């Protein structure tokens, strides 16, 4: 198996005069789970469709398991699972029949198909619905069926476009566990989602896309740290007893402390990121008589990272 499972180089996609994807490059190895975020029309779905070989590209090369997706589509399909945002189904078929159909289309043996159907229906909480007609399923169930369809051939590269859109909170938790499990099995995944908190939890990498461009790409830590700023960090301080003029008292620390605010009964401010400065500040606060009961540095989150790149709307 090659080290790089998915490689996208200088991908550009144009519709008429509109540039939907502009010079996007990245690659994923086994165990990488990339969360793709961006506003409506940013180019996320087009990028995923192009990666699956479903979207004609203007320039660029995309390869899965070392095979060009446009030159060898059939070979690539053996290793690729793609769940589009709108599930593809024959509404008159039952849940298990559509999966059986997909299994045969992938050239799987009957026994393997039945085994995998049982496994994925169980993993995606559809076992009770296996005999149900698809047109009787809710949106969330259809979404899960689409994921089961993508995973049935046991692909190495998995692309999921808004997979958690129709899931309830409990379903989202289970879905996070499923994605983490696939990641840990050494598969390469891309998940397009707008639930940023979820992405931070299970993704290894994050890509922020806007106006067709890859604005940020890196590990979750890299992207969020960068969002937090190179020098400054946000701190939360809990005081043992409330102090009325805390804002004024904080001014005593001069330029070392910025943007002081009280949030949820805690003191929140920005200060130097490095640990030595933080320790010195804490010591000075205690010396100044502030009843500090806890002093923590906030991790910059994905939401901050997203807002920092200047994209206003999250879809």
């Amino acid at each position, binding site marked *: 198996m090659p080290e790089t499972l998915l490689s996208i180089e*200088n991908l*550009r996609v*144009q*519709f*008429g*005069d*509109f*540039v939907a994807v*502009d*010079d996007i490059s990245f690659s994923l190895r086994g165990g990488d789970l990339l969360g793709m975020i961006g506003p409506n029309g940013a180019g996320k779905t087009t990028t995923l469709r192009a990666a*699956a*070989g*479903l*979207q*004609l590209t*203007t*320039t660029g090369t995309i390869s899965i398991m070392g095979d060009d997706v446009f030159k060898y*589509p*059939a*070979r690539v*399909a*053996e290793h*690729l699972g*793609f769940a*589009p945002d*709108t*599930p*593809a*189904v*024959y*509404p008159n078929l039952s849940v298990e029949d559509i999966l059986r159909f*997909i299994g045969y*289309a*992938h*050239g799987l043996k009957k026994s393997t198909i039945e085994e995998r159907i049982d496994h994925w229906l169980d993993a995606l909480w559809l076992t009770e619905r296996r005999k149900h007609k698809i047109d009787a399923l809710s949106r969330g169930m259809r979404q899960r069926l689409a994921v089961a*369809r993508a995973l049935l051939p046991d692909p190495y590269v998995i692309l999921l476009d808004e997979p958690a859109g129709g899931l309830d909170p409990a379903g989202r938790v289970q879905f996070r566990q499923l994605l983490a499990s696939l990641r840990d099995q050494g598969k390469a995944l891309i998940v397009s989602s707008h639930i940023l908190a979820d992405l931070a939890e299970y993704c290894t990498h994050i890509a922020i896309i806007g*106006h*067709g*461009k890859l604005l940020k790409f890196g590990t979750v830590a890299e992207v969020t740290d960068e969002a937090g700023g190179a020098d400054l960090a946000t701190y939360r301080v809990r005081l043992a007893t409330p102090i009325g003029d805390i804002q004024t008292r904080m001014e005593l620390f001069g330029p070392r402390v910025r943007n002081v605010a009280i949030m949820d009964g805690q003191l929140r401010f920005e200060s130097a990121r490095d640990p030595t400065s933080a320790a010195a500040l804490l010591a000075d606060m205690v010396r100044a008589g502030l009843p500090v009961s806890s002093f923590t540095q906030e991790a910059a989150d994905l939401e901050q990272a997203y807002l920092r790149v200047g994209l206003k709307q999250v879809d």
Partner: protein
Amino acid sequence: MGAITAGQGLILFLMGPSAIRRAVSRDVDNGMMISHRLTPMGNWKIVMGYLTGPIVQMLILYSLGLVLGLGLSAGLAAIEGSAIKLQVWLAAQVAGLCLAFLLTTSMLLVALATGGKNTALTIIIVITAIFGAQALQYVPGMGLLLGVIGAINLLGLIPGMGSSVPGSAAVPAIGCAVQLVIGSIFFAACCRKIRRPERATFSVGLALALTAVTSLAMVGGMMSAGALTRALGAGFEPGAQMIWSTSVQLLITMLLLNAGADLAVTMDRKSRFGAHAGATLWWTYPLLAAMISFLTYVGIGAVMTRTAPGALLTLSAVTVGYSLVCAAITDYSLFYWAIARGKPVLTIGVAIVVGLRVGPMLLDGLLLGMFALLGDLSDSGPPFMFSSLSPIGVMWMAGEPESGALVVGLIAQALIAFVAWRIMSGTRRAIATPPAPAAVAA
């Protein structure tokens, strides 16, 4: 037996193609077309699935009819002591299957190109295939393209119903072979289109093969035109047949121009990012298309010198060639513009045919009717005012080479081609210029 054949015809030529179109339309709507593209099946397997899957039950019915007909004709042959009826029955089945192959592959290709949504085009194809033989008197080559034996004429092959097909077995056999070849080209185009829905219906290679085969069929059809048209009891007008045949070929070459324009746009877009040198040889596509149409015209003319020397047209081949080149440049440029700007190519194609190829003659026909109503036609005005704007009209004006309207029309054709070329050049420049970052962001 006539009833069995009619039933088989209904299955093969009407119900089958219609079911295939509906299957494509349904799969495009519910996303299963994408699902098929995500499977490791070979393209030809997916295409075969569409060609046979939706009509499995119909094929079983057809096979039952085949067995029943075989039994009946064999029985009749035994009673009469002659195997002719059995042979004719089998010949009808082979001819029907060849036509069905051409029809279903063309129907699938149209469905894939339009998402199964263009019902009007579907109806036109079915009607043309069934009644195509009636066009033989105008376009003898249609006999080879759509069946020397159109579906209606198949009935004539059945014992006791009176054959309307000429006695020579070679012509129907060649017709069947041509249908299989063209059906195979359509099949190959389907295989390409199934995973590349955004690209032109034909690749340049497939379009070139198609236009070459149809060109040969047009000339070949003309060679047997006398026998075919007499068999249908129609008038035999070689001049008109020459013009109609070339006109049909002119329309078919639009597929080549569309394929060439699609490829050129792709190459020019890549050149913007330095990934390709661009379509530097773009002019070869219109020239190639014009040459194929011209060779069809000249080829038919050569056949006519042998079969009907008195009917030779007087218009210079150079004039026709000039007009065909202008038309090809115009069509290619407009296709290029449409593809590059994301306009609906099918609509642009229909607009070209209606507005620039057939429309001018219809306009003249309308004027002709008005002049006829108003009084003495000979003193009222020329019958070819607008026709000279179209190469089809130019060919029709063969009888009046001295007409001033012809000269004006030829100049106008060059001007139209020039304007279209300028539009294409502007589009090419826009494609080759990288957009400013602000424009991209907008």
